[in-house]
C-alpha cells in the first residue's frame, strides 16, 4: 500500500501512525508537510493523524482544514481516494466538510486518556473487513473534544445508510450522540474515528487490537 501521512504544525501522532502502517504493510509511508499543494501520484491512502494541529486554537482541526494541502486532499477524496482521519484528523475531516457533524468538547469537560471498547458496526468497509461485524475491540483514546454531534436529519442519514462504522461499547465517556466513535463517507472510503488504533499494533506496547484496520485497508487497496 502506498500511503501518505500529512503533518501539520502541532500534529503529534504522525510517528505512531507511520509505525502502524509499517507494521501492517511492511512499508514506510510518505510523510507530507501541510504546505504542499499537491499529493504525490499513485497514493492509495492519505492519513490525517492525531495531535493538536495549530494548538487546537479557534476550534480543533479548523485551521488545519484550511491548510494548502487540504484542497488536494478534497480532490483526492472526490476522485474516490481513501482518506483516514484519526482523532484530530477526524476533527479536520468534519471541519473540511469531508464528513458530516462536529466533535464537541467532551461531556465531562475534561481530557480523556484511557482505554475504550469499540463495537464494529460494519465489516464491509475498506477499513474493517478483517473484523467480524458486531465484534468489540479495545483501543486507546486521548482527546478533549471527541463528543460527536450532528443534527437529527444527518443522524438519521448516517444511521439509515449504515455509515456509523464504530460505536463505543459500554461507557460512552465523551458523550457522543448514539455513542458514535467513527463514521465513514457515503462511498465508505473516507473514515474518521476518535480512538487511536495506531497505538494498538504491537504485542509488546499497547496490544494488537487495532491492527485489523490497517491490514484491512492494505488488503483492500491491493485487491
Amino acid at each position: 500500500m502506498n500511503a501518505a501521512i500529512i503533518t501539520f504544525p502541532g500534529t503529534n501522532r504522525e510517528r505512531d501512525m507511520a509505525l502502524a502502517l509499517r507494521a501492517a504493510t511492511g512499508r514506510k509511508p510518505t510523510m507530507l508537510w501541510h504546505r504542499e499543494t499537491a499529493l504525490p501520484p499513485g497514493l492509495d491512502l492519505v492519513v490525517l493523524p492525531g495531535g493538536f494541529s495549530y494548538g487546537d486554537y479557534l476550534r480543533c482541526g479548523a485551521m488545519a482544514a484550511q491548510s494548502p494541502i487540504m484542497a488536494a486532499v478534497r480532490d483526492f477524496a472526490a476522485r474516490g481516494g481513501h482518506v483516514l482521519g484519526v482523532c484530530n484528523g477526524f476533527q479536520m475531516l468534519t471541519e473540511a466538510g469531508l464528513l458530516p457533524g462536529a466533535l464537541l468538547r467532551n461531556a465531562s469537560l475534561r481530557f480523556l486518556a484511557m482505554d475504550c471498547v469499540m463495537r464494529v458496526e460494519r465489516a464491509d468497509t475498506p477499513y474493517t473487513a478483517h473484523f467480524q461485524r458486531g465484534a468489540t475491540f479495545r483501543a486507546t483514546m486521548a482527546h478533549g473534544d471527541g463528543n460527536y454531534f450532528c443534527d437529527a436529519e444527518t443522524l438519521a442519514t448516517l444511521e439509515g445508510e449504515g455509515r456509523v462504522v464504530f460505536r463505543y461499547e459500554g461507557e460512552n465517556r465523551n458523550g457522543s450522540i448514539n455513542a458514535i466513535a467513527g463514521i465513514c463517507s457515503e462511498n465508505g472510503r473516507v473514515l474518521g474515528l476518535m480512538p487511536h488504533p495506531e497505538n494498538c499494533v504491537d504485542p509488546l506496547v499497547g496490544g494488537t487490537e487495532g491492527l485489523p484496520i490497517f491490514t484491512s485497508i492494505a488488503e483492500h487497496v491491493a485487491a
Partner: protein
Amino acid sequence: MPRPSPAKPGLDKRHAPPDKPGMSHVTPLDPARARQLGAEFGLKPDEYERALAILGRTPSLTELGIFSVMWSEHCSYKSSRVWLKQLPTKAPWVLVGPGENAGVIAIGQGLAAVFKMESHNHPSFIEPYNGAATGVGGILRDVFTMGARPIANLNALRFGDPAHPRTKRILDGVVRGIGGYGNCVGVPTVGGEVNFHPAYNGNPLVNAMTVGILKADRIFTAAATGVGNPVVYVGSKTGRDGIHGATMSSAEFNADAEEKRPTVQIGDPFAEKLLIEACLELMETDAIVAIQDMGAAGLTSSSVEMAGKGGMGIVLDMEKVPQRETGMTAYEMMLSESQERMLMVLKPGREKVAEDIFHKWELDFAVIGHLTDTGRIEIRHHGVLEADIPLAPLESEAPLYHRPTEETPKQPVLGPVADPVGITAALEKLVASPDLCSRRWIWDQYDAQVGGQTSKRPGQADAAVVRVEDHKLALAMTTDCTPRYVLADPEEGGKQAVAEAWRNLTAVGALPRAITDNMNFGNPEKPRIMGQFAGAVRGMAAACTALDFPVISGNVSLYNETEGRAILPTPAIGGVGVLEDVAQAVGLALPAGCEIVVVGETQGWLGQSLWLREIAGREEGAPPPVDLAAERRNGDFVRGEILAGRVRACHDAADGGLLVALAEMCMASGVGADITRRGDHAFWFGEDQGRYLLAVEDGAALLEAARAAGVPAERLGQSSGRTLVMPGADAIDISRLAAAHEATLPALMQGV
C-alpha cells in the same frame, strides 16, 4: 570584601565598551535608589556590596536586575551548593553529570538517555494551571536542548490536606496544567506520585521530569565558542510576563501571595511542540555551536551561562529581540520569563540554514548579538549601553553560604501498638486513604500512549516502561520520596527515597542506572531546615554510592514556606533504569494460579507508617531503617529472577506494607489470593524496607534460589478466585476493595 569604589560614571576607562568605540557608557542609577532597589529585588546588603565591587561603580537598572536574578537562590544554589557536592555523580555510564541543562547516561547500542526533574512549586500555588503547565514546558526544554527527543514525562506532586478548601482547586489546576501541556506537545505522561499532607496547604509541590533519547555522540551543550559567532534567538516573542520569577521563587510567601500572579508565566504548548521539532531538525545539521533554553531568568541566565561556560564575552542588541509588546526596556527583556524561547550560537554563515528551518515551523528567528573575547556581557539597546558586566566574577563571586545547620533529634523507635480495628477493616480503610487510593482520576487526564512505545503505564507496574523506538531496548522510570520519613529522620529518609526509586525500577526488571533529584525544602536560613537538607543529602549520597546509582542532574527549591510554616522536607527522586528487552518487563497485576512470595525481611516496623497515621491516628516514631547492603542483595536477586523469566508479577512493599502491596496486585488484575501465612497488624502493615512481593509459578524453586543467594524469602500463599482470604481475618472481595480504592479521588474532586 573590598569596599566599592565611589567611581563616577564615565570616568573609569575599564568600562569603555571595547568593540564599539562610539557607544556611550552605562548610566548608573542614583546610589541610594540602587541600594533600595537591590533590596527589593532580593539582594542581601552584602551581596549588593559585592556587585558594587565587581562593577567598580553603581549598577544600572538592567545590571541590578542581572545581578539579582543570577544571585537568586533559584539560579545560584547559594545555600545548597556546599551540600550538593557530597552527592556521587560519576559512573562509567554517566556521559554528562550535573551542571548542564540535563544529565546524560549511556544506555547501550550507541544511545543515551537524558533526564532531569525540576520544580515549579511557587508558580503552581499562585496560578495552578499555568504554574504546572510551564513547569512541564521548562523541563522539556532542558532535555531537548541537549539534542534529545523527549520520550516521557513524569511528575512528583504534593498537595495539602484533602479537606482543605484550596486543595481541590490546586489539584485540579495542576493536573489540568500538566495534561494540557504534555498532551499537546505529544510527550506521554507515564508516571508520577502524589501525596497529601497539611504541611503542603500553603505550598504545593509540582516537580516535573522529562526523559529523552539521543545518540551518544550527538550531545549538545551550552558552552559557546568562536569570537564573532552569531547569537540567535528562536521561539516565541518576548513579553512582560514572568519578570523576576526566579526572585519570586527564592522567597517565602506571605498572605499576599496571590498578588504575585503577574510573575507567573503563561505556557503555549503548541509553540513548544514547534520548537521541539525545529530544534531537532536543526540539530540534524552541523549549524549549532551551543544551545541553551531560556528558563528561569530568561535571556539573562541563558546568555550569561553560554558565554560564561565557554570563557567568552557576549554582546546583545536588545532592539533585535522579537517582542510581543511595544516599548519594552532592556531591563524588561533581560528579566522576562516568557516561555518557549531558546538561545543558540551558530557557526558563521549557517544563519540561513537555521532561519529556513525556524520559518518552516512558523517560529521567530533573529540574530541578536555575537560572541566576543572580552569576557563581559554587554547589553545594548538602540545604541545605548544598558549593562556591561564582567562574566567571570558574576559566577566566581556569586554568594556561597555555609548556613548553620541543626540536626533533627532522633525519634525513639516505636513500641508495640495495639490493633484497634482488625486486619481486614484496616486494609479497606487504607486502600481508600488519600495517600494510597487509586490515582486513576489523575492519570486518566494524561495521554500516556502517544509515541506508541509505552509498555507499562500508570497502574500497571512499579515503574513506567517506555521502549526506544525501533529497538528492543526500553527505559524504566519512576519518581519517589516519602516525606514523612525525611521529616522524622532526614538521613534515613534521604536514603529511603533513593532506595525506593531503585526498588521500583528493579521491580519491573530494569537495571537502575542514575537519578535526578528535586530538593524541596523550607527556608534555608533556619538551621533546622538546613539541617534537614544536609541530613537528606548525607542519606542520599550513601544510598547512591551503595546502589551504584549516581545523581546526574537536579534542582533545588528552597523557601517552601507560607507564613512561616515549612513543607515536609521532600527530596523527590527521579530514577531511570535500562531493560535490554522490553519483553522482559513485568507488571504488578497478580495472575491466577501463582504462588505469592515475599522477598526481604519483615520485622513489622510501624513507626511513621501509614497504618499508624490512618488507623491509630499517630504520626510518630523512627522511620524504618534502610539496610543498603540488604537492599542491594534483595534487589539484585529479584531482578535476576525476573530476567530469567521466572516471575509473573512483582511489586515492592512500601507505603502501607505487605498487605496493601498484595491488595494492589489483586486490584490490578481482579484476581484474589488465598493466604496461608499468619501475621498480626505489624506484620501486614509494617513498612520494613527492601521487600518485594513476587508471583511465581514455582514457589519452592524461588525459595531455594533465595536461600542459595542468602536472601530472606517466605511463601505467603497463592493467587486464586476473586477474594482475599487470610487466616484469622475476615475474607474480603477484591471488587469491594477496588470500589473503595477507586472512589476516593472522584468523590474528593466532585464538583470542581
